[in-house]
């Protein structure tokens, strides 16, 4: 606790290294102000960091996995320790994943941590975006960063989808099959896109090699590049902050980067790592050996995709079988639910900052103080409606499992869910609007019987 400077402190190793670097790169000048950079301290500001830390863990574990994986469909006969598959002809890719899981020490641990980290990564991005949305933190000047965040989410989906398809197990092929069919369904260019995507008619040529390069190189490069842009903008524009007594539009109130925030972040990183290590070590995930090798004529039922694909799966299940041919041009039944609707949904997400400024708030000014959800009832209502819609279609993604559990005919359940997907979002939106308005009423105006307990004393 004694703060007296020790005479030899000047010559400590750290000092000498820092001095050496500064002599050559002139670092102190630019870095000094960042020591005291203010980080507004609300827990919800840490969610984005969780996503970033999950990404770091994905990169580290993924590098390890990449050293053992081969994107090769050449058939080999399995001769490893997993008895049920011994003597079966499987692809070299699947073989390498089995080897990684059963023979490489700590291989299964890292594989499972990697998969769990992917789930947490997407979840953290989504929750982070919800926080941004409901507090209006996307408003000017941060519209661009909102868009970058949206692209990061899309890339995270892409990373998940490609990664899921690599093991060449029975389940992985199903996702790929559906993805290819969505591509094929696009009018006029679908077959062309399909050919370019997988090198020919399904199951294509050398698809694993392509997915592999996408998964380990192109998508991670995109993620890292955009994450860099994302953070650059955050530093440039500084953080938004919660409305408090001291917070103003022209200041940032918070903890200094050094030491408080830096240590908090490090602690959080290790906490994320600990949780993922626990999940990966204890909870089995994607046990590919149970699914067996991929065969185009077999399917694993009931097949469920990773959670963040559930809404798409649900859309595919709920959308009515509308397929029609006009002037010789067929619009396949899956085109609307697998291409158009997701396109519209993401279009709204990307355009939201401008939609919000133009039609919801009419406010085009720069803002750094966040709103509460109640401050803009219309936005909050829209957000809740959207969330409810996503939730309903997500639930519909396992309508067969539900129908079995509820002992309801599947068709009845599907009809109910279709109506729910239309009606519930409207109800949720209206309810959110009313609640927000209620909360906005000044306390004096509220009927005295409802609040006195809280106000007295």
């Amino acid at each position, binding site marked *: 606790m004694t703060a007296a400077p020790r005479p030899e402190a000047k010559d400590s190793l750290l000092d000498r290294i820092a001095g050496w670097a500064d002599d050559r790169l002139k670092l102190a000048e630019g870095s000094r102000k960042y020591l*005291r950079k203010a980080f507004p301290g609300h827990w919800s500001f840490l969610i984005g960091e969780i996503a970033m830390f999950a990404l770091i863990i994905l990169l580290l574990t993924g590098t390890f996995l990449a050293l053992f994986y081969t994107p090769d469909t050449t058939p080999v006969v399995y001769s490893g320790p997993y008895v049920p598959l011994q003597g079966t002809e499987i692809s070299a890719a699947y073989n390498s994943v089995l080897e990684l899981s059963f023979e490489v020490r700590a291989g299964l641990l890292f594989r499972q941590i990697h998969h769990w980290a992917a789930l947490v990564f997407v979840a953290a991005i989504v929750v982070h975006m919800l926080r941004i949305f409901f507090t209006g933190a996307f408003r000017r000047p941060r519209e661009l960063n909102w868009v970058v965040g949206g692209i990061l989410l899309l890339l995270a989906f892409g990373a998940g989808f490609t990664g899921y398809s690599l093991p060449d197990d029975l389940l992985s092929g199903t996702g790929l099959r559906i993805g290819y069919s969505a591509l094929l369904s696009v*009018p006029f260019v679908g077959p062309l896109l399909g050919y*370019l995507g997988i090198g020919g008619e399904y199951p294509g040529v050398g698809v694993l090699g392509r997915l592999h390069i996408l998964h380990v190189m192109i998508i991670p490069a995109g993620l890292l590049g955009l994450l860099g842009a994302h953070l650059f903008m955050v530093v440039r524009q500084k953080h938004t902050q919660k409305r408090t007594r001291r917070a103003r539009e022209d200041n940032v109130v918070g903890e200094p980067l050094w030491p*408080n925030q830096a240590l908090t972040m490090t602690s959080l990183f290790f906490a994320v790592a600990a949780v993922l*290590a626990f999940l990966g070590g204890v909870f089995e995930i994607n046990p590919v050996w149970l699914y067996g090798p991929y065969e185009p004529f077999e399917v694993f039922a009931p097949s469920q995709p990773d959670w963040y694909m559930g809404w798409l799966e649900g859309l595919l299940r709920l959308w009515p079988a509308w397929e029609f*041919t006009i002037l010789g041009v067929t619009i*396949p039944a899956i085109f609307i639910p*697998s291409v158009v609707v997701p396109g519209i949904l993401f279009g709204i997400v990307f355009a939201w900052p401008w939609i919000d400024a133009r039609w919801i708030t009419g406010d085009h000014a720069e803002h750094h103080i966040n709103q509460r959800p109640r401050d803009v009832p219309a936005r909050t209502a829209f957000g809740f409606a959207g969330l409810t819609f996503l939730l309903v279609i997500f639930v519909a993604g396992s309508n067969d499992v539900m129908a079995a559990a509820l002992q309801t005919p599947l068709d009845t359940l599907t009809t109910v869910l279709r109506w729910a997907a239309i009606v519930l979002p409207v109800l949720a939106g209206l309810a959110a609007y009313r609640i927000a308005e209620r909360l906005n009423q000044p306390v004096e105006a509220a009927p005295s019987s409802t609040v006195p307990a809280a106000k007295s004393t």
Partner: protein
Amino acid sequence: MADQTTTDERDDKARAEDRATRIAALCFGVSILAALGLLVVYLTGGDTQLEGILLTLAFGGVAAGLGVWVRVLIGPSVIVEPRDPMPSRAEDRAGFEQDFDSTVDEVKVGGRRRFLLQLLGGAGASLGLALTVPLLSLGPIFDPNARRELFDTSWSAGRRLVTIEGEELRPEMLAVDEIATVFPADSDRAADSQAVLVHTRPGAIDLSTLPYPDGVVDGLVVYSKICTHAGCPVGLYRAQDAELICPCHQSQFLVTAGAKVLSGPTGRPLPQLPIGVDDEGFLVATGEFSAPVGPSFWNLTQGQDS
């Protein structure tokens, strides 16, 4: 009295700090032990769950120790940083514009900058086109046969039906209510040719609903196994209703009525493969599928005979 309170408070604070230090030390200690334990477990053979738990403790110890350190020992600290509005100051912006504009003149050559600029733009666009078009190499789109790929399968008249194991089939080999996945003989189980052979109950088939009413042998009927929705293999057969069900999104096809769609999200029936029996008594295809197989695409009704 006041002094007394201050001393008490100071004691309390010191005690709290002591306690926090001990907790943080304990956390780091756990971390060290767990990490070393992890090494031992790994070197002595490894065990996924144990490794996971030790790794959790090793990471978690650092997380908790640092957390206590920063939250309790260092304690909260709030600073206020000024924030300027985002745009550059007006004079900076004007200055930049001025500096830039003044140098633009240097780039002009005899006032013909516009012309040069257009040509440069043209060169850039052409180069971009020339360099990105090779992406078309990713698919066989210049191969005229490839354009037929979506319409054709490996089936043709006279081709025998074989099981997944490659066994040729006679009509009597499949009992009523049984199904079998079949491929054309010697096709190496071509993915686009997979079909499902169903033995329906006697008299159940409504022949008038079939694309090929003659392509049926004693209640045996064959349809493409690839779902017309998103391409999953249609593998479940509910015999009492004669329904083929796709496990992916539960499209249901009525086998006895040309595999018409009973429910589910798909928009068209499974194409039928006409079959017959050859001289040696084996099941053979007598033609191609009644429509392109698998998920629909925009020109599926065209290209049939092109």
